[in-house]
């Protein structure tokens, strides 16, 4: 196993090299650029034998992936914010056509005002497009999830596209130690691509992407939704296999056993943070600090946001008295999404915890120890509104 201190973006590029997509199609957008530049170098050096399409827009990037995937090859693309929004229409179509396209989203705020820094408005905004969504905390997780997403998306029980979300700059541009399995090891984990979906082939002519009238549309949509609902078992299976095959090499840079959520010091906790992505690293430090003064606090990190792991979350939080949801997104005119989903989860629970929502870190605003402490103290003292903005 190769170990290196490497930028998270480059770790993802290394993972893509190991996955060996037949076609890469990408368009540059900050903060995703370091990923696609490094992949370009791999192709230019002959280290990666992919056909690399330098498209004229993100819209064409995802469309080219659609075409290539339908031809029966593994594909890769990556984008951020406005680029993901430009892909929006095709995200639905790729998922509806059950093509296992894989991408990385380097999370960035949505314009206006234009802002290149991190939050989760972009990927949370496309949560209902039918893609599996993973959120990475560390460069190691970004690397591992990039490998695993292919095995999950391409599984014949799943055939659903997936995105691995990494926080722009705060993770994408961060140098961290990463352990990377060899090509042989990854080949054994993720063999050469065999498509289990319909493929464009003159020997067996099929019509892909036809019109579905009201007589069939809803039935077809149901099979698609069933597949992503049921994918949670395949995700657990793949996570388990990966964790068993590739043990932790660098302590603390990934969960020992990957699961759809990571429970951090929740066993005896009374107060639990819930969050996605790189912010979880800061929260873990904060939890460790509080634990020194015997505060019973922990963290639930949501790694798999779609499908939403309802049972796992409910089980992990069943004895918690107060839940603090930290979100780097908003739903203008309503309460924030993860907060809403957690409250909905506990609607039928006999013991209902107090659930508080905090909107933080929009447009790259730093979420540091002081802010997390301020939030924690507010909740502990029962101060503030149900949902608060913390600037």
């Amino acid at each position: 196993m190769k170990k290196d201190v490497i930028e998270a973006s480059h770790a993802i590029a290394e993972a893509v090299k190991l996955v060996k997509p037949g076609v890469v199609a990408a368009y540059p957008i900050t903060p995703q650029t370091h990923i696609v530049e490094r992949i370009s170098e791999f192709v230019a050096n002959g280290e990666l034998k992919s056909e690399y399409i330098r498209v004229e827009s993100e819209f064409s990037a995802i469309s080219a992936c659609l075409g290539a995937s339908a031809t029966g090859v593994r594909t890769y693309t990556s984008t951020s914010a406005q680029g993901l929004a430009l892909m929006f229409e095709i995200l639905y179509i790729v998922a509806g056509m059950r093509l296992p396209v894989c991408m990385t989203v380097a999370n960035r705020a949505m314009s206006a005002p234009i802002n290149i820094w991190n939050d989760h408005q972009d990927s949370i905004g496309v949560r209902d497009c039918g893609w599996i969504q993973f959120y990475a905390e560390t460069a190691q997780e970004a690397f591992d999830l990039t490998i695993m997403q292919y095995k999950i998306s391409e599984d014949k029980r799943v055939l659903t596209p997936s995105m691995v979300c990494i926080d722009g700059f705060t993770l994408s541009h961060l140098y961290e130690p990463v352990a990377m399995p060899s090509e042989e090891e990854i080949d054994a984990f993720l063999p050469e691509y065999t498509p289990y979906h319909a493929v464009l082939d003159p020997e067996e002519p099929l019509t892909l992407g036809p019109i579905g009238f009201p007589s069939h549309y809803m039935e077809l949509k149901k099979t698609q939704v069933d597949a992503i609902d049921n994918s949670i078992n395949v995700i657990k299976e793949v996570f388990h296999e990966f964790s068993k095959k590739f043990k932790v090499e660098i302590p603390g840079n990934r969960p020992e056993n990957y699961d759809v959520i990571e429970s951090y010091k929740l066993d005896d906790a009374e107060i639990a943070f819930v969050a996605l992505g790189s912010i979880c690293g800061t929260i873990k430090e904060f939890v460790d600090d509080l634990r020194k003064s015997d505060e019973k606090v922990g963290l639930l990190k949501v790694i798999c946001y779609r499908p939403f792991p309802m049972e796992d979350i409910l089980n992990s939080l069943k004895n918690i008295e107060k839940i603090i949801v930290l979100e780097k997104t908003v739903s203008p005119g309503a309460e924030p999404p993860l907060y809403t989903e957690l409250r909905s989860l506990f609607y039928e629970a006999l013991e209902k915890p107090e659930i508080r929502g905090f909107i933080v870190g929009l447009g790259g605003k730093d979420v540091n120890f002081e802010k997390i402490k301020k939030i924690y103290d507010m909740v502990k003292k029962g101060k503030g509104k149900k949902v608060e903005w913390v600037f």
Partner: protein
Amino acid sequence: MAILGLPEEEFFSYGHRACAGCGAAIAIRLITKAAGKNSIIVEPTGCMEVTSTPYPETSWKVPWIHGAFENSAAIASGISEALKYLGKADKINIVVIAGDGASYDIGFGHLSGAFERGHNFTYICYDNEAYMNTGIQRSGSTPYAASTTTSPAGKMSIGKAEWKKDITHILAAHGSRYVATASIAYPNDAFRKIKKAIETKGPTFVNLFATCPTGWRVPSEKSIEVARLAVETGVFPLYEIENGKHKLNRPRDPDKLKPIEEYLKIQGRFKHLFKPKKRTDVIEEMQKRVKENIEMLLRYEKYGL
């Protein structure tokens, strides 16, 4: 029914739901005959996608894919590179068959991108000069003075106020090694051009004029007659540009064109130019443009662009 001299094998089956006399359906029969069995067809959203693939039925005997309205050229780019990766690039033709709305308008940027990148595929626009699938709205291809549902003729309007976009020359300017115009009224010429486009390496383009009887308000049995008149009057001249060299196929004499009136008066979309009052000014302006265009094409042939 066989068309004289063309392969008898059909890859676009009868039973589709297109209107009687649909020019696009005739176009697709010709295109698939020219492309043959070892082809992958990409179609954007439009009349022919809707009428030929009502799930679980299909008219297509060759592999066919539809993604969205504006991304056929990008899908074709992905297919082209995937085939290259699989080592099948030389064995399979990739043919986009798109309407004018998808080609001239909404998908134009992506079409330009795919041509600039030089993927090996053929893009055929079946040009019926408006958004027919949504109910005859004007597109960048709709001719001057045509009445459509979004450019209706009225007291203050002669129909569409703008001239048709010259998409063929724009694509030629991308450096494509073969672009051409063709018409369903000249099937042998169209067949030859489509085949040539497919056999030429890199991105190639054919603008294939295809009557829409419903949208142009002509009887369905006059579909071919109208398309032929479009050529004979010089409204839609047939030409090809191979390796940058122009060749005007027909009509070749700007002084012997059939009067444009013959073409206009049989179509409901131009009827406001004749009734209640004949708009001689508009017709004369159109006639002048048509003649100038033929003269320009002859200049291109003689001196280059």
